[in-house]
């Protein structure tokens, strides 16, 4: 790609990102307008006194016209103020900054472990397609996929924390305080999340690999006298990983919102848990700010993944698809 077209490309993508972000912001804001009664009503709940409601409404400026409020909210958000918790007064932005590393650590570790599980098993199953090895691996993946995420987590807790007592069931230790403790507390959550994603990666890799191995250039490679190992790793793996990598990219995007279930189950102070707590406590300002952050980050990450995708597949780089 020439420099000029590269810049144009980036410019186009950024413009699209901003447009989608704006729309996501609007949706988030107006979604909460759907709450019955006013926002203040919802936050304080049914048994709130009318005076308190009125006071909160005045504080939040709920008497101003909707569009004006949206503008104000958006302007604040762009400056980094995503509102604050009604209950603790803590600014949402600060809470995000504190909790984002936890969610990201979980996401990265889980992707790594998931790949570590899926790659060798997927390659083996694809290489030995149709044999009993393949059936066992595929069957295992299929069964694991049927286990809901939270059930998987509970099972792991049951086995490793309760019966074997090897690992803590819940709780989080920051890396800066105690690296070993941090990793220990992350083992079960990471394993749970990895086991959720690995079967999907495995199946994609396996089926793509099996079909790549049927292609002519693989026979050509065999005719050249290359060993099976060389063929698998140097010829077959790269073209077969696209589906798997695409889904990985999508998952990374999804996990920006924190792995809500895992974080709740293992009491990890991440973004997902913050969201759930906000919803349960009816802290709607927090929820609003968080959803905005999550959706914008989601869209941004998706676009970044698209861009990386183009780098990996040389055919896409030149605009052709065969």
């Amino acid at each position, binding site marked *: 790609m020439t420099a000029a077209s590269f810049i144009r490309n980036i410019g186009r993508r950024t413009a699209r990102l901003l447009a989608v972000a704006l729309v996501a912001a609007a949706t988030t804001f107006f979604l909460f307008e759907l709450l019955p009664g006013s926002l203040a009503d919802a936050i304080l709940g049914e048994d709130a006194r009318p005076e308190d409601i009125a006071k909160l409404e005045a504080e939040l400026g709920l008497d101003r016209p909707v569009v004006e409020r949206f503008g104000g909210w958006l302007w604040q958000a762009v400056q980094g103020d995503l509102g604050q918790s009604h209950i603790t007064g803590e600014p949402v932005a600060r809470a995000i900054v504190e909790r984002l590393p936890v969610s990201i650590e979980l996401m990265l570790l889980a992707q790594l472990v998931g790949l570590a599980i899926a790659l060798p098993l997927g390659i083996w199953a694809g290489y030995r397609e149709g044999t009993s090895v393949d059936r066992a691996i595929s069957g295992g993946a299929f069964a694991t996929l049927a286990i809901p995420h939270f059930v998987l987590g509970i099972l792991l807790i049951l086995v490793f924390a309760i019966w074997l007592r090897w690992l803590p069931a819940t709780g989080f230790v920051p890396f800066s305080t105690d690296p070993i403790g941090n990793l220990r507390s992350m083992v079960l959550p990471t394993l749970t999340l990895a086991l959720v994603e690995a079967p999907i990666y495995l199946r994609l890799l396996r089926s793509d690999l099996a079909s790549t191995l049927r*292609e*002519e*250039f693989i*026979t*050509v*490679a*065999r*005719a*050249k*006298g*290359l*060993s099976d190992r*060389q063929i698998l790793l*140097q*010829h077959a793996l*790269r*073209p077969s990983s696209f589906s798997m990598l695409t889904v990985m990219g999508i998952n990374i995007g999804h996990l920006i919102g924190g792995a809500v279930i895992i974080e709740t189950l293992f009491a990890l102070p991440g973004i997902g848990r913050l969201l759930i707590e906000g919803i349960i406590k009816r802290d709607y300002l927090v929820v609003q700010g968080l959803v905005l952050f999550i959706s914008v980050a989601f869209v941004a990450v998706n676009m970044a993944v698209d861009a990386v995708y183009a780098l990996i*597949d*040389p*055919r896409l780089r*030149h605009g*052709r698809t*065969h």
Partner: protein
Amino acid sequence: MKHDEEAPLLDVSELSVRFPTAGGDLSALDDVSVALGRGTTLGIVGESGSGKSILARTILGLLPRKARITSRHINFAGENLATLGSAAMRPIRGRRIAMVFQDPMTSLNPVRTIGSQLAEGMITHLGVSRAVANRRALDLLKRVGVTAPERRIEQYPHELSGGMRQRVVIAMAIACEPELLIADEPTTALDVTVQAEVLALLRGLQQEQHMAMILITHDLGVAAGYTDEIAVMYAGQIVERAPTRDLLRTPRMPYTQALLGSIPRLDMPAHVRLSVIPGRPTTIYGDVEQCRFAQRCELRTEICLHKKPALSVIDGGRIYRCWNPIVP
């Protein structure tokens, strides 16, 4: 058979290949015997489904696991390839016997550069370093007539034209200076104008390196111009084999003559319909006690339908299978 003073380089004897399927055992090759000496070219001609590609792949041991292969021997330079396992075949593949496949679009890995695919065989078989292999790759590209080889090395297959790609495939095949080159329909997927160039290239390389070559094609016209001996295949059997000139002048098997008749010629009157062999090639399950071409043969008689024609050998090493050969 063309007689060199030395023993033939490749000697395939009584090769049969079957594939078990739900409908029975599919007979892909039946009692096939071919041989060729160093530096000579054997053409294998037949319609699609005749088994010519299977023959090529069997020699290199590239058939799927479920294939049932039986033979007296498949001798290559004295060694019986049929007895060699996968690990023992690997040093031979690409190094001593190389293959050029039909479709250059699908023969190359789309996500790796031309250079890396060229270098790979040399690094594996000759143990040279990456740098040396790259230098040789450049030389190879020049020899096969690829323009701007320095640029091509870094490019990906989809950036080259079909003819260019096939040249690269040929370069890959001769990289380790094989003793035998098997070219399976090397020009079928190419433009007519490029076909002649590629065939000439193959011929030139063969002479330079004193390679034996098996040229597989469905086009008898192509075989006519570039081979020393031709074996005609039908439904998994060799139905006639003779030195090229003899085959063209005095074919014995009606199928061969029909093939000859279907080649368009410049000295034919204009607007004459090309003669076509009626019917389509069949797949044979198990073994049949009849001539496999009988259904489509104009010269068939009763015996053709009830008894498998024996192999007739006439002097000069010609063979044919027919109850009613054409007598010159």
